[in-house]
């Protein structure tokens, strides 16, 4: 979002007509309506002053990847006609408890500015922001045209806040609170007025308390445009059946538990409800699946492109049966309870698969009481999938063991990876067959997958792995590193070698001040850098802050024991200057 110098096209001087200069702004704005992505729009705004102005007047959606990179006032000044805002807050590692609570990214100051600058705001999509009930209430009352609210991995609000939204937002089409940490004060928040019919998407899958089912059923019955419905684990099968009967037009469904419900008369009724849902392309939920009910799903699986089983402890045989009914599957998320055998079933049934995510059912290896808790998945499952699914371009794979050879085979079979996230859960684990570091594995990935944009590495890694990344990963935009590397050189290679790097997040690596400072030239072209439990000192960070005044260099200091060590460092570019709302444990240098 940094405002760069205006440049003029050489072409304008050479063109005989020079008509481009006198192109009326209104016409240009009409044309620019068709330019949609924020990257394209940024490019347009850099052409010349006229285009910059035309672009800013015609932009209706603004994407802000780091809420502290710019102030709400600056956004309002530049873009007068915004209808839709996407904002991201905390660093991604906050998902794993690495950022202390009350760190910041409060939406409220933004809402206050938007209330006066954009009274006709329609959409707000937030990720990792703090949202209070007061803010939700303010939102609901300040924007009469408000349509879509999406809160992903947000926190700070309760069901009372949701009640404000459902009560006051007359034109709401979307309410999505997935993965947000909500204080559950009970289920009466779902109180849309009886006259309200505009809802198209509702996702309350991770809410803990029961909602008023009668209210939900009536809502679903009267909202004929409802396409997305994801309920929580209190909605049992019979209730689900009733909802499906009222909403056969659904395209995305998140179920509750798929296990015995006394109120359900028979499987046939459930199956018939599912067979009426001919437009379903996404299925999720399926908490606690009982295999006798699973076949009821089958009629709805024909057109499924996305199956999210990440809350379902499924065994390989059950998965195999289910997958045979999903020939068009493009994205699959599973738990590692399916084991390698389950992944072999994926390989044989899902030839169109593009994305696979395998999550650990038992990440901390506590005693597994769940049925069939085994060893999760290994390298052979990974190889099997790569053999059967040549279109694979996105993988997230949690495992306990891996080999360099297996990874090399995987990328040979699937050279089109754009996102490769391998998490060997045992810290610093080498290739379990050869006992060598996993350097060659990631070397193979970056050498073979020229389109790679996102990479997460794990296992025992030396600087060599990072040399490979710096040499070959020329399209890399996001890199996540944990418990890896041998010296500053590792990080230096990446900073010097990856021109498109935007986000770098590092934890528990032996990178120090020299590495940090080697990236001086890079950080202004990146969104952010996170380094925790590395070898950074306050001196090093202060030096960086002094040399690069347009960067915010923040150190999170949680305990007073070691004054010189910089335990958690967050560096990001900003045109808004240092944060004015930083809590006491965030030091801006």
């Amino acid at each position: 979002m940094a405002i760069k110098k205006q440049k003029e096209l050489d072409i304008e001087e050479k063109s005989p007509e020079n008509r481009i200069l006198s192109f009326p702004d209104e016409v240009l704005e009409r044309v620019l309506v068709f330019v949609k992505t924020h990257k394209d729009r940024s490019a347009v705004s850099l052409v010349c002053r006229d285009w910059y102005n035309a672009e800013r007047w015609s932009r209706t959606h603004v994407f802000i990847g780091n809420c502290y990179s710019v102030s709400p006032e600056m956004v309002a000044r530049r873009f007068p006609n915004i209808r839709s805002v996407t904002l991201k807050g905390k660093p991604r590692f906050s998902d794993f408890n690495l950022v202390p609570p009350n760190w910041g990214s409060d939406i409220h100051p933004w809402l206050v500015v938007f209330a006066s600058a954009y009274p006709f705001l329609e959409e707000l999509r937030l990720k990792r922001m703090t949202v209070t009930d007061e803010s939700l209430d303010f939102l609901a009352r300040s924007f009469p045209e408000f349509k879509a609210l999406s809160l992903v991995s947000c926190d700070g609000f309760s069901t009372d806040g949701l009640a404000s939204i459902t009560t006051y937002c007359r034109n709401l089409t979307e309410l999505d609170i997935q993965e947000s940490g909500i204080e559950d004060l009970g289920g009466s928040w779902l109180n849309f007025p009886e006259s309200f019919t505009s809802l198209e998407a509702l996702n309350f899958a991770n809410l803990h308390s029961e909602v008023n089912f009668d209210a939900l059923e009536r809502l679903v019955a009267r909202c004929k445009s409802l396409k997305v419905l994801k309920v929580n684990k209190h909605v049992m099968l019979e209730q689900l059946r009733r909802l499906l009967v009222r909403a056969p037009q659904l395209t995305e469904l998140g179920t509750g538990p798929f296990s015995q419900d006394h109120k359900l008369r028979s499987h046939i009724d459930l199956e018939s409800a599912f067979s009426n849902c001919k437009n379903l392309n996404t299925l999720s939920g399926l908490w606690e699946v009982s295999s006798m009910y699973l076949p009821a799903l089958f009629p709805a699986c024909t057109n499924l492109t996305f199956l999210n089983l990440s809350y379902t402890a499924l065994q390989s045989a059950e998965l195999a049966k289910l997958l045979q009914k999903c020939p068009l599957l493009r994205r699959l998320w599973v738990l590692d309870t399916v084991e390698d055998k389950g992944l072999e079933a994926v390989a044989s049934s899902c030839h169109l698969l593009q994305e696979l995510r395998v999550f650990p059912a038992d990440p901390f290896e506590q005693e597994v009481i769940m049925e069939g808790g085994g060893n999760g998945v290994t390298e052979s499952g990974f190889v099997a999938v790569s053999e059967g699914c040549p279109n694979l371009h996105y993988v997230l794979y949690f495992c306990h063991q891996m080999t360099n050879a297996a990874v090399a085979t995987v990328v040979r079979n699937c050279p089109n990876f754009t996102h490769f996230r391998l998490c060997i859960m045992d810290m610093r684990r080498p290739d379990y067959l050869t006992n060598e570091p996993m350097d060659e594995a990631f070397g193979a990935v970056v050498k073979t997958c020229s389109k790679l944009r996102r990479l997460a590495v794990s296992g025992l890694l030396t600087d060599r792995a990072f040399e490979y990344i710096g040499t070959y990963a020329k399209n890399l935009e996001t890199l996540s590193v944990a418990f890896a590397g041998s010296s500053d050189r590792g990080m230096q290679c990446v900073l010097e070698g990856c021109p498109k790097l935007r986000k770098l997040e590092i934890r528990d690596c032996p990178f120090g001040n020299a590495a940090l400072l080697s990236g001086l030239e890079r950080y202004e072209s990146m969104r952010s850098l996170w380094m925790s439990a590395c070898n950074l000192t306050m001196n090093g960070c202060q030096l960086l802050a002094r040399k690069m005044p347009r960067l915010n260099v923040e150190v999170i200091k949680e305990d007073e024991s070691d004054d010189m060590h910089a335990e958690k460092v967050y560096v990001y570019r900003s045109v808004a200057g240092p944060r004015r709302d930083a809590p006491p444990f965030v030091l801006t240098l």
Partner: protein
Amino acid sequence: MGEQGNSPTSIEDSGHACGSTASLSQSSTEDLRTELKLGLSLSIPSQTSSSSSREQHSDWPPTKPLVRSTLDERRIPPHPASFFVKVHMEGIPVGRKLDLFALDGYDSLIRTLRCMFRTNISCPGLAQVSSRKTYLVIYEDMEGDWMMAGDVPWELFLNTVKRLKIAKADKC
């Protein structure tokens, strides 16, 4: 505040590449502290250090807390076991099965049976004129006798019941 610094030693005070001379300032102490904290060996990286560490971390492996807590909930089974008994309704050849451990008392039993068989079952203990239309719940106990449900406390009932029957009231 310690060393301010533009001097080379302080920039490299994180230095710990193999063979670098450790500077004898505050920085080498903190290197040691950091090293101990990270549990890393400063020299050859190919040593298999803590490769199978099963340390408990709330921040590793990187799975989201929501997913973790959902799976944790499942790890502790809500009921210690299940106790399925057969239930037959008079006049209907095919019976059902019911998990008694999923219920918390006779009320819950009657409600569930009413739902399952969609018929009017009268509550135990209610003085009702037996008619052709109402049903009662009876059970076979460990001794093989058929008894009216509801006389003994629920826990005792659970210990002695073998199977259930829904019988016409006027026949009991």
